[in-house]
């Protein structure tokens, strides 16, 4: 289990939009990407500094994107770097979800 009280320090992250110290999301997937990152950090898969520099590299990498798109790309790269899974794995699973959605009638839960 995770160590208790391992708090992510949001203030050190580049460009994050906070409201009263809380992150601001514009869509559910953004909150999900955020939460996955915090969870992997809590599990000790990377340090918060590693995360902050990965995100910073993405943001300053020259591609214009919305903030949480940068976030997700940075997370995917860090995960690949840590050999948790490859970008190809993610790519093919993404397609699997699209395929699953296309065979699921609207309103029913989408399952792989």
């Amino acid at each position: 289990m995770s160590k208790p009280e391992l708090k992510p320090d949001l203030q050190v992250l580049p460009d994050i939009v906070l409201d009263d110290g809380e992150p601001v999301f514009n869509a559910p997937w953004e909150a999900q990407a955020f939460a996955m990152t915090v969870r992997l950090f809590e599990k000790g898969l990377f340090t918060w500094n590693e995360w902050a520099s990965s995100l910073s590299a993405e943001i300053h990498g020259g591609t214009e994107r919305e903030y949480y798109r940068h976030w997700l790309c940075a997370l995917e790269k860090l995960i690949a770097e840590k050999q948790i899974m490859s970008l190809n794995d993610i790519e093919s699973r993404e397609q699997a979800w699209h395929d699953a959605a296309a065979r699921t009638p609207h309103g029913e839960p989408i399952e792989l």
Partner: protein
Amino acid sequence: MIHDGDSGDGDGDGDNHNHDHDHDHDHDDGMSHLGKMEARVRALESLLVEKGYVESESIDQLIQIYETKIGPKNGAHVVAKSWVEPDFADWLRRDATAAIHSLGYTSRQGEHMQAVFNSDDTHHLVVCTLCSCYPWSVLGLPPTWYKSPPFRSKAVIDPRGVLSDFGLNLPETTSVEVHDSTAETRYLVIPQRPGGTDGWSIDQLAALVTRNAMIGTAIADDPQ
């Protein structure tokens, strides 16, 4: 046709995952659709769960902790204004999309909104298992339970049961109408104005309108 007011995906704003998204917008076959970013995040999460790095429950818990700042302020403003200004309420009834738009609340995809008004006779409840069918621009992020399949199936079969799970026990004389939010039409429940609020300003009233009241699992708060 507007398909999926999705996760802000597929509008080509410099995304580098190199996916064609045109196919996203031209099937209207009653099947589900995931936005690009939504599918991408699902891909990552499902792989991490399978490999044992994270548990879905812990992700949901974290989201609940952090999502509190995404209050349903926009929707609450819409509701409160409709309580105070009959003309606005009228407009909302006729063309909710335009009425809401007039307050500056728009989403990227500009989905069609419909306002449903609670009364003594009818209580409205909105369901959908796809978070992409949820009007974030008005309500903020959906609560985690809203996306759960059990909530939806129970809401359809036994809406009164769901409401009483949420602590809302309606009189027998009030019928419950369930609306299935779709990619094309998203619903906003306009709760009834609570008593004891005569002369209140829109801002004061808006504070009584919770997200759950605008989904229909609650009524507006009582004035303290």
